[in-house]
């Protein structure tokens, strides 16, 4: 049975830990991938994912008003990623370099690798907008709720993000 988030969240807040487990399995990969694309490092993405679900679990003791669980998780992940970026002052791309060795000479793989490199160099606000749209499939309205912006601002942000990605990608491309 596929219960919706609100029902499961209410059950979890009433002490049903199976409900938490179901929610965890529903959002673990999305949270992990969002953090991974934001930070470019699997280990740090793992730490962030763990922190997100620990916070959700601990919210059972001090229930907070969660109107939309999916948005709540992404806002939490985004804030933790931004804190991490601010603290470390650099976004590690060690994993991407490691992946480069395993990638063959196929043109499509090479293009993807360059795109990843370009992606990692994007400014945080542009990157998060792109990840939320391209990889998490959020609508403009949902992104505006997560980022705390208007819908037209999201539209403009995504446009700037694409232009910047294109610019960095072409720069990387021209080096070879």
């Amino acid at each position, binding site marked *: 049975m596929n219960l919706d988030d609100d029902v499961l969240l209410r059950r979890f807040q009433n002490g049903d830990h199976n409900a938490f487990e179901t929610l*965890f399995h529903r959002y673990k990969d999305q949270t992990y991938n969002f953090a991974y694309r934001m930070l470019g490092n699997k280990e740090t993405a793992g730490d962030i994912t763990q922190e997100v679900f620990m916070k959700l679990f601990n919210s059972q003791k001090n229930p907070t008003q969660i109107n939309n669980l999916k948005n709540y998780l992404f806002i939490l992940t985004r804030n933790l990623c931004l804190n991490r970026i601010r603290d470390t002052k650099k976004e590690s791309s060690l994993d991407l370099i490691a992946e480069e060795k395993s990638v063959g000479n196929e043109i499509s793989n090479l*293009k*993807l690798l360059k795109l990843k490199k370009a992606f990692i160099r994007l400014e945080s606000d542009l990157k998060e907008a792109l990840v939320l749209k391209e990889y998490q499939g959020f609508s*403009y309205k949902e992104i505006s709720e997560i980022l705390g912006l208007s819908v037209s601002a999201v539209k403009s942000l*995504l*446009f700037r993000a*694409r232009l910047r990605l294109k610019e960095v*990608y072409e720069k990387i491309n021209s080096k070879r």
Partner: protein
Amino acid sequence: MNCLDFQQLISAKLDKELTQDEEQILSEHLKICTNCASLAKELEELKVITSTWKNVQIPVELEKQILNRTVKTTRKERPVLSFLGGYYKVPRSLAWASILLCLILLVNSFLNPLSTIKGARKIEKPIQEISRVQKIVLTERDVVVTYTVLGKKN
């Protein structure tokens, strides 16, 4: 509308966020503006490459770790005889066997009280009480006549 506005529409089109009217206006513009048409093509190519970056799965170890630190911790079963505060760590089967043995002895003591010291005392007690209330009733026949002999003492 200028080219910048149309370029924003190109991006929104890739996101499938255009109305029918906007789509119509954009397609008309792209027919006459080579600059915007070229950008539309480039952004489309970039989107294709972007879509090849597949999601990865969360590592199994990490998944276990998170569950262990959340639900599994609070679900941990309390050991039998936990009220002893962990001073006595006994195997569960042994603990249950001890409890069962105690129950058997308890039931046995109720069903067969003579076999216990306490039960035996319970029987003895009434006998002692009866002996205390016994009365010696003397009748006239039982009266013994006593004589007193008076005499000098040597």
